[in-house]
């Protein structure tokens, strides 16, 4: 499916490229401009509303958009490989860093007052309606007999947030890596399914598998908005999820792209994000309110992305690599409860 998304992105790029050329050339309708937005998939509905709202403003009157949505990592790689984009919005910062390395995004992209972020969220614990197993905190997820869903962090970049949330909570924000690692080991012994994306994980959960799901607050809100039977708890100690946005260095329309970015930081636009379940990065925009976890921490508290990627998520030697490998060995000796007797 991912490959198909990339393909869709490429098609969109070709169409967008053609449209972009038409925009540059003087045309009968005046100076119409087409911006290409390449984003991760979860905020798609929000962006469709945001674009419509932007086009009602003076700055956005003559701007139309081509939009491409897909898995954050795939979208970032597509842009790095040449997919034309004016604005990129991803679920986590390393996907922008990849484009900075490729000289497609200016290194100063995160020097604004929002540090390059456009929305926030927090990692939450989703449960069945009414929370029958009373799962409210990270420790509850490692109780025997509790099944927890979270995507595979090596396949889904966004799933790193879930793991960092539990890790940071149990390691005193990374100060005690051994405790954090031990927690993740116990947690993954309770994970019967490691889906390839946050949305696939949510589908597995709403399909009836598992007692709890680690997810983002905005995903849980999205599920509730779609009448899925899911409750969620915001743990006292959890991670602040920060979603970055940037203008590309090779944008054909930097002025209009900047105008769109400025619009996204207005109170009106931030309220649209909030209604879609995201925490605004601008204070006091109205709309839904979000509970403030007592012990909220950030990726910076854990040492930044390059440190956690190396320590926790290196595919060969890291905390998660050894947990996943130990999982296979352990479960082949003693099948977990999820394996049916028919398993070979």
């Amino acid at each position, binding site marked *: *499916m*991912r*490959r198909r998304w990339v393909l869709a992105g490429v098609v969109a790029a070709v169409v967008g490229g053609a449209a972009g050329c038409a925009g540059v050339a003087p045309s009968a309708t005046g100076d119409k401009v087409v911006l290409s937005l390449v984003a991760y998939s979860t905020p798609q509905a929000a962006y469709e509303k945001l674009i419509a709202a932007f086009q009602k403003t003076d700055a956005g009157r003559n701007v139309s958009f081509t939009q491409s949505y897909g898995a954050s*990592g795939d979208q970032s*790689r597509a842009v790095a490989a040449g997919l034309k984009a004016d604005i990129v919005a991803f679920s986590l910062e390393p996907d922008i860093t*990849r484009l900075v390395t490729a000289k497609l995004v200016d290194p100063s992209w995160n020097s604004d007052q929002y540090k390059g972020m456009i929305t926030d969220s927090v990692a939450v614990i989703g449960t069945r309606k009414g929370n029958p197993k009373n799962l409210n905190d990270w420790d509850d997820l490692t109780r025997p007999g509790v099944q927890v869903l979270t995507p*595979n962090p*090596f*396949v*889904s*970049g966004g799933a790193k947030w879930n793991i960092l949330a539990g890790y940071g909570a149990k390691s005193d924000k990374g100060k005690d890596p051994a405790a954090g690692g031990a927690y993740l080991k116990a947690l993954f012994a309770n*994970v*019967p*399914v*490691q*889906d*390839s994306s946050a949305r*696939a994980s949510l*589908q*597995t959960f709403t*399909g*009836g*598998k598992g007692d709890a799901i680690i997810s983002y607050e905005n995903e849980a809100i999205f599920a509730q908005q779609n009448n899925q039977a899911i409750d969620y708890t915001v743990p006292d100690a959890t991670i602040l999820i920060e979603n970055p946005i940037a203008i590309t260095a090779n944008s054909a329309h930097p002025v209009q792209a900047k105008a769109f970015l400025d619009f996204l930081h207005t109170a009106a636009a931030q309220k649209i994000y909030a209604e879609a379940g995201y925490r605004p990065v601008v204070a006091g925009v109205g709309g839904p309110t979000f509970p403030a976890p007592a012990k909220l921490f950030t990726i910076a508290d854990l040492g930044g992305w390059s440190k956690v990627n190396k320590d926790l*998520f290196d*595919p*060969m030697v890291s905390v998660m690599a050894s947990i*996943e*490998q130990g*999982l*296979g*060995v352990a*479960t*082949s000796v003693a099948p977990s409860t*999820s*394996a*049916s007797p*028919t*398993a*070979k």
Partner: protein
Amino acid sequence: MLYLSLIVLIPLAAVVWHAGAGGPGAFWAAVRTPDSWSALVLTLGASAVVAVVNVVLGTVVAWVLVRDDFPGKSIVDTLIDLPFALPTIVAGLVLLALYGGSSPLHVDIAYTRLSVVVALLFVTLPFVVRTVQPVLRELDRDMEQAAYSLGAGRWVTWRRIVLPNLLPAMLSGAGLAFTRAIAEYGSTNLITGNIPLRTQVASVNIVGRIESDNTAAAAAVSTALLAVAFVVLVALDLVQRWGKRHD
């Protein structure tokens, strides 16, 4: 030839080239990483099982469709191709709904290795049916009648007359099913649960390598799949040639 090169040969060569860029040591290390190796073994094993099951049951289905008459036969004949038309991610969702935890059939095989086989069986069923069917339809019944009139029983006739004629089609169908199965992503991705070293198939493992920005390792695992697929296809071809020589 130019068309073949642009569409098939150059992309495949690029994958192999990328896989070998780090030298044979890096290639072998990527393939022998525990999770990749386990995913490869699972994928190839499940695909082999699927190919064998499909050869037997696919031939039976083709036989029934060609030789038997029953109401609704043409509808069934059309339905056979549907697994091709269904996006495999949808196939995965449907299989999950039918054979998962809330199964209306009370069959819970989701997130086990058996589920890998079931998903692949579904996706690859048409191959053997569609390769065997036309051959069976063209098969000269006079030969069978002659065998019967010479006193051969049903089984002997089948084994000595029908099977040798069908075998090339069955083998090429099996080859197609096998190679398609080892590359399957959409359906297996959903129904297997993707637990590394247990139910994670090679294609999902490869996606993980790409997500971790390790495209060389992804290409290495892909190349290992390509190599096995190539060997299997060549072996099947050799068996067919050998069969023809002994006609």
